């Protein structure tokens, strides 16, 4: 055992030595592996970085949640066509209670009315997205409080004129006295600030339930002050809309039932809303989709990488075959001295593996450098994963063995007498 360990270490030493003797040639031979492995790691790092960001955004939505939005239908039908200049569409208070009562898997539902109003404190003003909701909002859209408290059940029952605003809105509206207890005028009514909450972090492509200029007020107070009819001014005309609820967030008890429940809700809504004035958003489905996309992405990258590694391996085999021819006499000498065929195979195989592993290691260095450069220059998030490192080292070793075995066998099969005569 110790004898063979010693033998292998000396063979490796010898292999490294042989390769350093032809430094330039070894380096050029390794290039294929270097770029193959480097590009594998770099591509996977870019893919990982991008998908990680997407997944984090989706998780912000809450993977147990189903979000139902009211959508203005393209073709208006029913009540709204009677030249009332008022379009009626969207989710109803009844929808919320129907969902809550129909599906056993639903833990809670969260209604929200969303309108845009100007918020004003003294000289400061900000276009707020006023969200009329219940205390459950803060359970489902879980963001840390900066100061004060959330909306309470009591606030809802008592139709209190209280508001929780985002940190962003607080900075805009209350720059000097950045405190709770301030009174904000929203539209025509006054609300007391009882809490300041952190807004969603990233301004990603995916729409989160909360936005940075949010103001949360009890849904009861919202109906009382603003009613269900909203007026929007656009291009000189006024459009009146009757929307009971803009959004319902449904929280499902178990994550396994999310997709089934979403299907059920969709079917139910389709029955009551013939004009399809709603839209379901299932973060879990998005998550699954993102993961599937990532898998596809990895398969595509993997195939490209496999081809480049194959090319690299063939390059190594080519050089090793040349090396066998060049060193025919050396092989003859070793065989005459008493080296067995397996030892000759070992010698050349070790050389190939050392070559490909060295290429792989340099490639790993490159694989760290390229993502770093991409992050620095393009600002894209990248992440080099441990798996890709282990994988590329394993692959470069495997390539060394696979592409080394043929030249090594050729070397070992040489007739010693012929090999010794070789010029």
């Amino acid at each position, binding site marked *: 055992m110790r004898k063979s360990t*010693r033998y292998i270490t*000396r063979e490796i030493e010898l292999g490294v030595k042989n390769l350093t003797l032809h430094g330039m040639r070894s380096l050029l031979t390794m290039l294929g592996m270097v770029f193959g492995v480097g590009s594998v790691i770099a591509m996977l790092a870019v893919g990982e970085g991008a998908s990680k960001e997407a997944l984090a955004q989706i998780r912000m939505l809450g993977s147990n949640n189903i979000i139902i939005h009211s959508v203005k239908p393209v073709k208006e039908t029913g009540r709204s066509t009677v030249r009332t200049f008022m379009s009626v569409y969207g989710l109803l208070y009844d929808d919320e209670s129907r969902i809550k009562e129909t599906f056993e898997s639903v833990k809670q539902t969260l209604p929200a009315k969303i309108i845009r109003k100007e918020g004003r404190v003294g000289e400061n003003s900000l276009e707020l997205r006023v969200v009329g909701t219940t205390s459950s909002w803060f359970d489902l859209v879980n963001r840390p409080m900066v100061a004060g408290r959330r909306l309470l059940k009591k606030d809802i029952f008592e139709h209190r004129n209280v508001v929780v605003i985002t940190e962003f809105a607080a900075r805009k509206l209350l720059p000097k006295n950045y405190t709770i207890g301030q009174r904000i005028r929203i539209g025509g009514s006054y609300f007391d600030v009882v809490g300041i909450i952190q807004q969603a972090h990233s301004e990603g492509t995916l729409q989160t339930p909360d936005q940075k200029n949010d103001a949360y007020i009890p849904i009861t107070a919202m109906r009382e002050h603003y009613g269900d009819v909203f007026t929007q001014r656009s291009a000189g005309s006024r459009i009146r809309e009757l929307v009971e609820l803009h959004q319902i967030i449904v929280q499902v008890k178990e994550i396994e039932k999310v997709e089934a429940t979403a299907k059920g809700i969709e079917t139910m809504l389709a029955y009551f809303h013939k004009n399809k004035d709603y839209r379901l958003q299932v973060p879990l489905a998005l998550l699954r989709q993102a993961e599937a996309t990532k898998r596809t992405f990895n398969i595509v990258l993997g195939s490209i990488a496999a081809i480049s590694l194959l090319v690299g391996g063939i390059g190594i085999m080519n050089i090793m075959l040349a090396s066998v021819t060049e060193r025919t006499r050396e092989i003859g*000498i070793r065989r*005459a001295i*008493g*080296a067995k*065929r397996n030892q000759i195979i070992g010698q050349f195989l070790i050389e190939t593996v050392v070559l490909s592993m060295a290429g792989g290691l340099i490639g790993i260095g490159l694989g760290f450098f390229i993502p770093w450069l991409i992050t620095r220059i393009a600002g894209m998030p990248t992440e080099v994963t441990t798996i890709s490192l282990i994988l590329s080292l394993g692959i470069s070793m495997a390539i060394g063995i696979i592409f080394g075995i043929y030249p090594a066998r050729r070397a070992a099969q040489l007739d010693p*007498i012929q090999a010794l005569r070789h010029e």
Partner: protein
Amino acid sequence: MSQSEESIESSSTNTASVVELEDVQKTYHVGDHTVNALIDVSLSIKKGSFWAIMGPSGSGKSTLLNVLGCLDRPTSGRYLLVGQDVSTLDDNGLSELRLRRLGFIFQSFNLIPQLTVQENIELPLFYLGENARLSAKKAIELADLVGLSDRVQHRPMELSGGQQQRVAIARSLANDPAILLADEPTGNLDSTTSTQIMQLLADLNNQGKTIVMVTHEEDIASYTSNKLYMIDGGIERIERN
């Protein structure tokens, strides 16, 4: 492997003959032709003797040396090397026998150019699995024996022909072989150097080494005690001094 080592070990002790050839034939097939390279060669080489194999080119001296060197197997007949029947061995067995029993010296020295003098001498020990420290010690001793102790870190290309052949001789001695096989060891050397090399071989023979050398020069052969003349694959005559 350990079994074959043992049998080599046990059989070597009580034989006076290092080599025993009985009716050895070697036949090559070149296309449709059959070439009889060795015809009925029987020969006994005693321990400590010095042989010269002579004859015109194509007479079969190289083939005989290859058979003796276990690089080639006889087509028929028996070859006993230190009591071991070579004809029954496979490639691994032949390699093992070369490693433990034989030392080669070639006309063109055949050192490995990438390795230093010391590493070249160590090569048989490397395949024997000797540890690095002992190998180095032995290599330096052998370099000293052939008068090259100040050149151990040089590469073959930096040495003269005579010096390279000395390194080759040192290497052939590293495994303490039962027999040294030399294929025209002075063929690439000038006359002065040739004399020195032959003197070195004669010294080794005086110390008890069995040496078989192929040559076509009578004055080189004169260093030996036995001359084997070959013609057309057979033994023409044997002269003993």
